[in-house]
């Protein structure tokens, strides 16, 4: 072909290597699933329909288990209704509380069409998107715990950063004492997460329930997440608790997307505050 000296040739090969590797690292750094989606809308649409078919087949074969889950949830909701009924009149309790209304959560059921548990950064894809009113940063829960946060939305689908993601942190608290800490996954076992930054003086016993935090803008407070399995002192200052999740992420078929009516306003307020600080 051409007569290039071996040295120049080596340099060119090295240059090509650097260019290709730089390309890969750039992709890695500003990685976004739905950017890929924009580029590959055509392929992605077919892929999603494939995943959808697969997940509906899996859901069909697991109908018995799903029915059980639904029955349990129905039971829990019935209990909730009876608890909210006004005991004196026996009629449904009508709240005329506008503050509560402003701070309320609404739920939207969705079906999981893609899920993984064996990566360091696990994602879910659900079959609801902007057309169903989904937005970024909404929380996703199931009947047995919190699942993750909506990270990207397209017209009919949304991608969720799973709780099983080593880069993701959530706030959670101990139901008994109300002490809150940071919940994170260590990337090993999809049934186990860690609740850290719990002060030493808090008394903890094995089996204590961990629930979602009141201050969270994403999740409704008090959703059970898991129970404490063991605890250890970290760096002599804080307790780190091993939490076993109630939810089995591997057999997740239906989730609820939570939208918090006041969240946008509160976020706005906090942003204003930060700007003033600067």
């Amino acid at each position: 072909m051409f007569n290039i000296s071996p040295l120049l040739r080596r340099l060119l090969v090295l240059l090509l290597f650097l260019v290709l590797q730089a390309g890969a690292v750039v992709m890695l750094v500003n990685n976004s699933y739905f950017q890929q989606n924009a580029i590959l809308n055509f392929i992605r649409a077919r892929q999603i329909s494939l995943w959808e078919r697969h997940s509906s087949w899996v859901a069909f074969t697991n109908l018995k288990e799903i029915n059980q889950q639904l029955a349990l949830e129905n039971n829990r909701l019935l209990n909730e209704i009876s608890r909210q009924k006004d005991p004196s009149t026996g009629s449904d309790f009508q709240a005329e509380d506008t503050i509560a209304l402003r701070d309320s959560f609404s739920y939207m059921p969705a079906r999981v069409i893609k899920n993984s548990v064996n990566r360091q950064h696990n994602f879910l894809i659900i079959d609801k998107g902007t057309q169903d009113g989904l937005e970024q940063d909404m929380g996703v829960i199931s009947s047995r715990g919190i699942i993750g946060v909506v990270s990207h939305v397209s017209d009919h689908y949304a991608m969720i950063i799973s709780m099983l993601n080593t880069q993701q942190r959530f706030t959670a608290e101990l139901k008994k004492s109300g002490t809150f800490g940071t919940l994170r996954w260590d990337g090993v076992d999809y049934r186990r997460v860690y609740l850290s930054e719990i002060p030493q003086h808090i008394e903890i016993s094995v089996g204590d329930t961990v629930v979602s935090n009141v201050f969270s803008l994403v999740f409704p407070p008090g959703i059970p997440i898991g129970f404490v399995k063991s605890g250890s002192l970290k760096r002599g200052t804080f307790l780190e608790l091993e939490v076993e999740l109630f939810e089995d992420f591997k057999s997740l078929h239906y989730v609820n997307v939570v939208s918090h009516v006041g969240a946008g306003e509160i976020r706005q307020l906090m942003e204003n505050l930060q700007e003033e600080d600067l």
Partner: protein
Amino acid sequence: MNDFLKYFLRFVVIMAAQLLLFEGLTLGTYLYPMPYILFLLLFPSTYPSWQLMLWGFAFGLGMDTLSAGVMGLHTASFVMLGALRNNLIKLIAVKGDFDDLTVPGFRSFGFARFTLFVLMSVSVHHLVYFNLESFSFFLFWQTFARLLCSLALNVFLILLFKRTFFEHKR
């Protein structure tokens, strides 16, 4: 058959197998089957490494976009393997071991040296892949364990598939 066409066909078949079969296997955190690495090991020993890199880049990009994971992981590790593969062959080759058309394999290298070659190649790929995936040395021992377990699995799978599908009978 035209060589390029042959490689392209392999490209499609191996990627399809990886995406449709092996990506769906959930064997736990520690085992990630990635037998697609075999793709780069099937090129002739004297295939220019810049072309290997381009093949690796294309294949990795395809894997990344189609498998709905973090972008760039497969690409970075496969380009790295493409760049180093020929040097690995030189490491284990004996003088007069191959002519231009020899493909690395059990017959040309012998079982022990070919296994060593596969082991080194998969190690290069996995070192890049798992370290980039965890993106920190915070979970070093865990990343290390994932690397080793997947390494053992993938070397086994690659040797198996090489033996089963890509060794020409004579």
